[in-house]
């Protein structure tokens, strides 16, 4: 594997000076209690699922920050909190210096909303099947009243369709006339319609075949270069994340366990969970067999283990890990991990042997 790793060019700022987005101690709990009567009769307390439990990160202008993790780790919830589809229980979201939670006036909120957009996972479910494509793409333009003249709107929609590699004539078709990859292009065109600076992409290629995935990933990179976009990229596929992101946050049960530049995360993962995730990647270069280091499954997030939530699966866990939740600490410049074992020097350093 080592021969396979080429050193990537060091072009990316590791610590952003003025981040476009800053998320501080973000929390979101969902009420999963039984119905009121059941609670009274069975004397059960209210129960909450802490989907996101104190997440903090920054995204610099023009970079791609990725969140990875297995299902149920809270990565999609973070995405939805940022665009305002869910309301946070606690914490702050600061977009370009403005605290989103402090905005009271609707006009101010709309002005801010205009600057970010979201791309969803399933292009079959995120387009209205009864609307023609040009109406779908023009919706953000109309909602934000960016252009009033309908011929100008048409011209803009045609330009957007061309930008994402479709033909302006496709605007008159319905979503069902397109393949999955083409639908995701339509979703991207719609997301770009109000000239956003920041795109939240929630598993944008998970529903697509690999060859189509390559088309969409290439398109997203081209658009980023062309339009100077900033991406928050959510995925469970580590190879895709490695390809797309400048910096990566690894999530486990609602918390970020490690944040690092993409390159350092893959060359020198520090948190035991990150190491385990990397060990799960099928070795397509077939240079050897992988170790059997992967064990266990993600526990039920309603009743997470005490202390460090990863301790039941962790090879390095000790008594302290079972009691005390570790905080993110800088383990090397620009690389942060939440693990007692690293702080105590119990984790052996160096790159993982694959």
């Amino acid at each position, binding site marked *: *594997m080592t021969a*396979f*790793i*080429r050193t*990537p*060019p060091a072009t990316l700022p590791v610590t952003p000076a003025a981040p476009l987005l800053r998320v501080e101690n973000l929390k979101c709990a969902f009420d999963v209690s039984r119905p009121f009567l059941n609670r009274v009769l069975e004397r059960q307390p209210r129960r909450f699922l802490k989907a996101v439990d104190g997440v903090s990160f920054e995204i610099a202008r023009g970079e791609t920050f990725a969140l990875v993790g*297995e*299902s149920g780790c809270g990565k999609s919830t973070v995405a939805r909190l940022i665009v305002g589809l869910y309301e946070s229980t606690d914490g702050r979201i600061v977009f370009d210096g403005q605290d989103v939670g402090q905005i009271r006036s609707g006009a101010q909120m709309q002005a801010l909303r205009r600057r970010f957009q979201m791309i969803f996972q399933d292009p079959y479910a995120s387009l209205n099947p009864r609307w023609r494509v040009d109406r779908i793409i023009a919706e953000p333009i109309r909602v934000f009243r960016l252009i009033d003249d309908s011929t100008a709107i048409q011209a803009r929609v045609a330009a957007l369709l061309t930008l994402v590699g479709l033909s302006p004539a496709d605007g008159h078709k319905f979503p069902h006339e397109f*393949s999955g*990859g*083409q639908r995701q292009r339509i979703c991207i065109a719609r997301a770009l319609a109000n000239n956003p600076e920041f795109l939240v992409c929630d598993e944008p290629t998970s529903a697509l*075949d*690999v*060859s*189509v*995935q*390559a*088309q969409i*990933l*290439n398109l997203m*990179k081209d658009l980023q270069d062309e339009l100077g976009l900033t991406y928050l990229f959510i995925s*469970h*596929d*580590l*190879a*895709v994340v*490695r*390809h797309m992101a400048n910096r990566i946050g690894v999530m486990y049960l609602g918390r970020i366990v490690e944040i690092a530049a993409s390159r350092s995360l*893959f060359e020198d993962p520090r948190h035991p969970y990150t190491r*385990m*995730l990397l*060990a*799960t*990647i*099928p*070795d*397509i*270069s*077939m240079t050897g067999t*992988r170790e*059997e280091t*992967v*064990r*266990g*499954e*993600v526990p039920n997030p309603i009743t997470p283990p005490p202390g460090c939530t990863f301790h039941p699966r962790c090879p390095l866990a000790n008594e302290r890990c079972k009691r005390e939740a570790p905080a993110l600490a800088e383990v090397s410049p620009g690389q942060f991990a939440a693990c007692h074992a690293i702080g105590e020097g119990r984790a052996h350093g160096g790159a993982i042997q694959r």
Partner: protein
Amino acid sequence: MSDPTPPPLLSVRNLRIEFPTRRGTLVAIDDVSFDIARGEVLGVVGESGAGKSLTGAAIIGLLEPPGRIAAGEILLHGDPIHRLRPDQMRHIRGRRIAMIFQDPLTSLNPLLTIGQQLGETILTHLDVDEDGARKRAIALLDEVGIPAPAERIDHYPHQFSGGMRQRVVIALALCAQPELIIADEPTTALDVSVQAQIITLLKRLCREHDTAVMLVTHDMGVIAETADRVAVMYAGRLAEIGPVRAVVQTPHHPYTRGLMGSIPVLGADIRRLVQIDGAMPRLNAIPPGCAFNPRCGAVFERCRSDRPDLLPAGATRAACWLFDAGHASEQTR
């Protein structure tokens, strides 16, 4: 591997599957042939709609009407099994060929305990009494790595996690000691860390039991780790077939090459992925000649009119006119 005597475990010869519809007949599988040897793992890859799952369903006799085998044959140890009556097929399905489905949630009956489901299969196919079946079920659960099997056997599927459920499904497939398991996307519904465990388990069990596997998946990584040979399907046809190392590292068919290049690889900093423009044709609009010709970078006249057979290409066989002896000599002239 393709030694004519004795016959291979499974042999698919010129299989053609059609779906008659009101607007004409759709050919979903068109002239597909391959063999699976004893204890061999054959990976079948392709994009959605390439016909890989359909091939598996046809082998085990679960083709849903109006789909029908229009031509070709499926031979198990040289005996045709594609024309068997449903009651005859039941002696083969589960006993000699078993199946693992993609979604462990829907392939287990939620109203029966794990033990009842395993017991039913064991009693149907093996000559044991109920006590023996239960003992065997517990041993199987233990083998697939379910902790406290004697206790868990009386639990219902909803009491198991996704990964554990897929382990139960594997136990169910193994319980009559079949010669061939058809695993249709066995890890697609699972998380990556669970996927790795299930693949390792499947590999180990099949090696120990000398069971052959037809592993249907869209995930090239899973194939690279598991399979001995790989068949790449495109628009209902075989594009390339050969030893896994050759197909993954030095693919010959332009489609396989594009497919391999489009997978992001860790450790390699590629600015752009190789992309194959366009999409796989719909079944009602498969172009004449080679089905891949409208998307192919190396297309020439013959590709648009004649359909290529599997031709020897390096260590693999590829359905591409580039590897026709006539074409090669034309290029050098």
